[in-house]
């Protein structure tokens, strides 16, 4: 029989605060984490804004020596995982480490390390490439290092599906527990790609907002004046636990996993399939996975990137899945505040979704000022709304045509 899987720990490093309390306070107050890029001189770039993580003190989470061997995206993952473990109040001494696994997602991996070492090679020759270059840069090192810092000896893998990475990771971790392969899984996503080459690459695609004069207003999902996404960074990490395991130790349960679905557009490298038909199929699969009728969904944390195409096509996909129920849905894109954390986006949005269930509050879509006739749903404009949430659904759609959806529900015996 399928095991039931619950969420019992939340940890995050985000542009609007670290740890679930700060993060939740910011996104329910409608605070933007977007500003001018400070990590490098972006004067020559069309986009000069991003949602950077502020006040991250790596020594709060690990030894200096450990941190030195990690790219920033790995540091964010380890920090988020430690916060999630702390939040779960689990006794690390008492757990069966072989029943404890990790599945993390990252879209890009250690690109800052890549750029730095590539520069060294060009300037000083191949003999000056650091022996830590490869173990810092490779994408799987986030789940590898998290397993080392937590002693998690169970299932361990990494998902790379661009902006869908974290949602796919959470879905896969859910399935690992559901089929009985582990009792606890650390999961979610991490990203740290606010670097010159990465920003330059997304600029070249004309995928990012160029509203450099009004950073806090640049991410405006579903609004008529949206002109691209704003890159964010950080990590969003959850501890998933098999229900009986959580009950035995008297864990606080935030919510229950109620379904996972994924699909491919099989259409284009970056453009979504017409009418969002791939996203639609991912949502339908996630609903079917948990035998959840569409009418049960109260809240959708949309992918809502603030690009013209995504928001229009995601709206069409939602309409075709939910039909008449669409007017009863509360939808929001928290990317309006956090920016787009790429491979970590689904992680912090999963946290927003379970906290919406726990607190009965829908975080808003800020900067929603000028409605677009193609996007005509209830996006929870500008102010958080109180509403009992029994079921929340979170979408993540990635370049390559990857679509992933997870569903959470309120935990009941």
């Amino acid at each position, binding site marked *: 029989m399928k095991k039931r899987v619950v969420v019992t720990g939340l940890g995050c490093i985000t542009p609007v605060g670290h740890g679930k309390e700060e993060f939740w306070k910011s996104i329910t107050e409608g605070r933007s984490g977007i500003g001018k890029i400070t990590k490098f001189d972006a004067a020559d770039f069309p986009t000069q804004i991003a949602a950077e993580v502020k006040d991250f003190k790596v020594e709060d989470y690990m*030894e*200096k*020596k*450990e*941190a*030195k061997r990690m790219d920033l995206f790995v540091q964010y993952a380890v920090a988020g995982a430690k916060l999630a473990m702390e939040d779960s109040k689990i006794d690390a001494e008492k757990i069966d480490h072989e029943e404890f696994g990790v599945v993390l997602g990252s879209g890009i991996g250690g690109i800052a390390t890549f750029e730095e070492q590539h520069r060294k090679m060009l300037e000083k020759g191949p*003999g*000056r490439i*650091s*022996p*830590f270059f490869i*173990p810092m840069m490779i994408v799987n090192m986030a789940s590898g290092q998290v397993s080392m810092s937590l002693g998690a000896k169970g299932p361990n893998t990494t998902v790379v599906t661009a902006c869908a990475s974290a949602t796919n990771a959470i879905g896969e971790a859910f399935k690992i527990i559901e089929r009985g392969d582990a009792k606890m899984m650390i999961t979610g996503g991490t990203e740290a790609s606010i670097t010159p080459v990465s920003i330059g690459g997304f600029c070249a695609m004309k995928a990012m907002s160029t509203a450099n004069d009004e950073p806090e207003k640049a991410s405006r999902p579903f609004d008529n004046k949206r002109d691209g996404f704003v890159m964010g960074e950080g990590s969003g990490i959850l501890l998933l636990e098999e229900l009986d395991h959580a009950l035995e130790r008297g864990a606080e349960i935030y919510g229950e996993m109620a379904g996972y679905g994924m699909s491919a557009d099989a259409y284009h490298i970056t453009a979504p399939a017409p009418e969002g038909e791939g996203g639609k199929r991912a949502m339908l699969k996630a609903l079917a996975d948990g035998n959840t009728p569409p009418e049960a969904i109260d809240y959708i944390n949309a992918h809502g990137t603030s690009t013209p195409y995504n928001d229009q096509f995601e709206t069409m996909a939602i309409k075709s899945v939910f039909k008449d129920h669409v007017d009863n849905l509360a939808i929001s894109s928290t990317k309006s505040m956090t920016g787009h954390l790429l491979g970590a986006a689904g992680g912090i949005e999963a946290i927003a979704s379970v906290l919406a269930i726990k607190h009965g509050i829908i975080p808003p879509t800020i900067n929603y000022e000028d409605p677009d006739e193609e996007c005509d749903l209830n996006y929870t404009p500008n102010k958080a709304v109180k509403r009992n949430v029994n079921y929340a659904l979170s979408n993540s759609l990635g370049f390559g045509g990857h679509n992933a959806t997870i569903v959470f529900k309120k935990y009941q015996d």
Partner: protein
Amino acid sequence: MTFEKVKEIIVEQLGLEESQEIKKGTSLINDLEADSLDAVEIVMAIEDEFGIEIPDEEAENFKNIGDIVDYVEKVK
């Protein structure tokens, strides 16, 4: 002085505390818990600092910090 400079590089590369006791007889691997990758990076940093080349065959023979210092003094 060569020893002080080498010590500084090791402290920096291994992320050690300033108070860490490092003597000529200190072993990178046994006493400071460096691994083979740390050793490679330390050798590179020393090469850069002193403008020398340390062939792999030489680096493999270093048993402790004193061996590194002696080699640097010999070739620089």
